[in-house]
């Protein structure tokens, strides 16, 4: 039971990392990435192939994240003259397209057989403690990512991003470099998706195109929506909640008599769909609502209209 819980706990960390990435690009900058599973897969295959070539695992993780970021920024630039919807469409196509590449380029990816025997860090040294170690590494990375994102999103950079999310024209007139901000936000998100993919590959030691299907994108959107779409803490909590729904539906199936294996598998998707509908009905803004900067203004009533220009202008 412990090893099962550790497995689920580590997987939750990977979902949380994906959710954090989605908060950065969607929740904060308003850019929909419907192909996040593609970036997840890209990071997984990149890191796997590099370690099999002999690169140290740590560096391979970084490479997986970087390659995803580069790909994400490229899509941003590619669709820069188009409406936001097109970025969503392009990424959706990327997610599916990459899966087909994984399936068909057998010389590189092993096709539908996938790649097995992916090395994990300190597996021999840690022995039986390995699941604990990996659990700690994964959650450590999640906390590190959340800390870093919290820092940049709480700064003027984050404020400018949220302005771009709400109204690009207003942000531009305020003097913000809209395209640069969008590329940075989308790149950060994609980097986290890629890193999550790398973590996943070395954790399960086996990847195949079946691991990178569109359902995962939907789970992560659900997690972020559940948590409050622009909130980091919400993303982590949402990931925990989604994983709980997914896994508990496994046990719930035992209490429903007369289900065959296929029906039990479908129960998972059904539970997720029901959860999404309930959230949208009960609390459309998610568990955590918007977070706005407080003015901390002195509590004095506004006086009569004063001169609008003081020494600070000119």
């Amino acid at each position, binding site marked *: 039971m412990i090893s099962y819980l550790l497995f689920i706990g580590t997987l939750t960390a990977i979902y949380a990392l994906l959710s954090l990435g989605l908060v950065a690009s969607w929740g904060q900058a308003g850019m929909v990435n419907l192909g996040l599973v593609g970036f997840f897969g890209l990071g997984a295959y990149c890191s796997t192939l590099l370690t099999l070539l002999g690169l140290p695992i740590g560096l391979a993780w970084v490479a997986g994240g970087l390659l995803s970021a580069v790909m994400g920024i490229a899509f941003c630039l590619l669709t820069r003259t188009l409406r936001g919807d097109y970025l969503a469409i392009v990424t959706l196509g990327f997610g599916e397209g990459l899966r087909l590449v994984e399936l068909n380029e057998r010389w590189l990816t092993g096709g539908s057989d996938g790649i097995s025997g992916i090395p994990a860090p300190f597996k021999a040294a840690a022995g039986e403690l390995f699941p604990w170690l990996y659990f700690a590494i994964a959650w450590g990375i999640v906390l590190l990512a959340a800390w*870093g994102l919290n*820092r*940049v999103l709480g*700064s*003027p*950079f*984050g*404020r*400018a991003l*949220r*302005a771009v*999310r*709400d*109204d690009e*024209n*207003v*942000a*531009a*007139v*305020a*003097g*913000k*470099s*809209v395209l640069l*901000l969008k590329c*940075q936000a989308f790149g950060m998100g994609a980097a986290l998706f890629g890193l999550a993919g790398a973590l996943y590959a070395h954790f399960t030691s086996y990847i195949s195109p079946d691991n990178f299907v569109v359902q995962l994108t939907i789970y992560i959107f659900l997690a972020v929506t559940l948590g409050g779409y*622009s909130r980091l803490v919400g993303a982590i909590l949402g990931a925990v909640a989604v994983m709980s729904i997914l896994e508990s539906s496994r046990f719930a199936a035992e209490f429903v008599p007369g289900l065959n294996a296929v029906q039990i598998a479908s129960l998972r998707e059904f539970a997720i769909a029901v959860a999404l509908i309930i959230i949208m009905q009960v609390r459309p803004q998610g568990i955590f609502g*918007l977070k*706005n*900067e*407080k*003015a901390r*203004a*002195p509590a*004095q*009533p*506004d*006086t009569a*209209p*004063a*001169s*609008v*220009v*003081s020494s*600070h*202008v*000119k």
Partner: protein
Amino acid sequence: MAEAQLAISDLAIHFGGVRALDGASFDIRPGITTGLIGPNGAGKTTLFNCISGLIPGASGQVRFEGRDISRARPEAISRAGLVRSFQLARGCENLTVFEHLMLYGPRQQGENLLKAFIGGRAVREQEEKLRDEALDMAGRLRLTHVLDNLVTRLSGGQKKLLEIGRVLLAKPKMILLDEPMAGVNPTLVQEIADHLEVIRRSGIAIVLIEHEMELIDRLCDEVIVMAAGKFLARGSFSDIQSNRDVQESYLGLRRQ
């Protein structure tokens, strides 16, 4: 006559078959308030959109303080000191009044991703200074009590005040104001007009789109009349009033 601060020559753009701007040309002198009037559909707002770079693709040339900004991106134009307001008082629906004011602060170091991550004194001090300016501005515009409200919760008049406040926080040299007093109660109209007079006295040039002729008379040093996407006439308000072309195209219509 001093050299023009904003020089527009032969600006033209069409949307489908509609020539929204049809070769508009005129200069605006530094530091004065210029009224831009003309009937609805004359191309006044389109002119602002083209000057501020929000609608790219116009032919002709726009020069601001000697620099060609015809093809510059909107953020570059704002940074050069030419900042516009929006007619419908647009805002970011999920941001508060305070955040809007802070947003317009120019050259914020903390907008650089790396500096935002590293933080440090320079970023913090700039942020504190900007915050003081924002609070100060809110006080002057009597928006202090709504600072933490989302802009969607503001009244129409408060939105107009915020529009002026945030434009000023960008430390502009010239501001383009698109009907800053439209749809506002008479008391507040006078209040906003007072603000505009102070802005002018501080040396910031204003280009003002306005339909209320009394306000144009009170606030503007010079009036430019547009009709059907073209420059029609310019002069003092009394010159314009006695101009026959203008009477026919705009003022005359109002007397009926």
